[in-house]
């Protein structure tokens, strides 16, 4: 059996996006705009970390290290996450727009993977599709309410959309194994996913009274999948792994 490098690379980038965004979103716990939303956003952050664990577990079964080691013992340049997910939270409008853009892509990715030729991944995709459907429902609802709320909420959402869009396009940075993934029937490919994503987000953005940045301004932010990251990732990792690193062998 081959080393299945194409599948491993694919799993790493999915799982790293989920872990890092899950951690970022969990930074809102206790700071949410209202109790009910604090609970909802924190719960979704936990979902993401649970999803990353499921993917790291598949990697472990393919011969990679155990999930805790993968999650907590790597440095920034060994992570495959997109720049979108590592950005600091800033204000809540940014976090909501990131959540809206990311979770649509995540949902469509899981949906496409329900038909993958790689059974362990298909199983995970079928398991989590419903969970992510709620994340999309949550993102859509907030985008539409705040996009059509008052002038301040509309302006904030539009500005965040403008500032986040190129980062979100970075989700679809092609893998070196793109052709192989498609040929093997593992995945539909990032290009096809991006098309589906644009089809899904455009009507919601329109209903929210917001405008998608003009195509002429699109400049996808790439590099994350290759281990090139912003200055924000390493401090996040230092904080996230602080307790684990005190005693990596501890039983929890």
């Amino acid at each position, binding site marked *: 059996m081959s080393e299945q490098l194409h599948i491993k690379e694919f799993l790493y980038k999915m799982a790293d996006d989920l872990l890092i965004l899950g951690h970022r979103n969990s930074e809102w716990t206790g700071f949410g705009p209202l109790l*009910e939303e604090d609970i909802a956003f924190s719960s979704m952050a936990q979902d993401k970390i649970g999803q990353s664990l499921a993917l790291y577990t598949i990697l472990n079964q393919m011969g990679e290290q155990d999930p805790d080691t993968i999650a907590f013992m790597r440095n920034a340049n060994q992570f495959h996450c997109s720049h979108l997910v590592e950005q600091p939270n800033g204000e809540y409008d940014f976090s909501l727009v990131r959540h809206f853009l990311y979770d649509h892509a995540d949902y469509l990715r899981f949906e496409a993977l329900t038909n993958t030729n790689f059974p362990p991944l298909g199983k995970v995709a079928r398991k989590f599709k419903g969970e992510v459907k709620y994340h999309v*429902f949550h993102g859509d609802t907030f985008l539409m309410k705040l996009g059509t709320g008052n002038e301040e909420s509309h302006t904030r959402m539009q500005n965040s959309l403008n500032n986040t869009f190129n980062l979100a396009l970075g989700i679809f940075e092609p893998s070196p194994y793109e052709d192989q993934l498609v040929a093997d029937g593992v995945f539909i490919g990032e290009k096809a996913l991006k098309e589906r994503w644009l089809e899904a987000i455009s009507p919601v953005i329109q209903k929210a009274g917001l405008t998608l940045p003009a195509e002429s301004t699109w400049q996808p932010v790439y590099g994350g999948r290759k281990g090139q990251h912003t200055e924000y990732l390493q401090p996040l990792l230092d904080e996230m792994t602080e307790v684990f690193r005190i005693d990596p062998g501890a039983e929890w």
Partner: protein
Amino acid sequence: MIIKSLDPRVSRAQIDGDAAFEHPLQEMDQFETFEVFAQKKRGTHHEHVGSLHAPNPEMALLFAKEQYGRRGVCVNMWVARTADIFATDYDDEDIFATVPEKQYREAGVYKVVDRITKYKEEQAKQA
């Protein structure tokens, strides 16, 4: 005074602990409340599971799912504005006073009929 905490998120946020209490919430600063009803299984009735704050019914459903549906089994949820619930008054609690004493009104007999019918059917099958 800026709040200092062992939680790095709190220290980073540079929260002015005094300012946080300068403007206590007024009545209209709160969203209205909704009552949440959850159904464990299709066909069974929805049960009241609690209440929450939300700006509108749609967002109440959104919050209800995480607040009351994230643990345990749930297949469906209802929300209703608390203001739309009509309730009896606790001052009139005595209207229920004699309820437990009315065994003669209970339809216990129907259960016996069910058993008789079942017995007859079984007999018919065996015959």
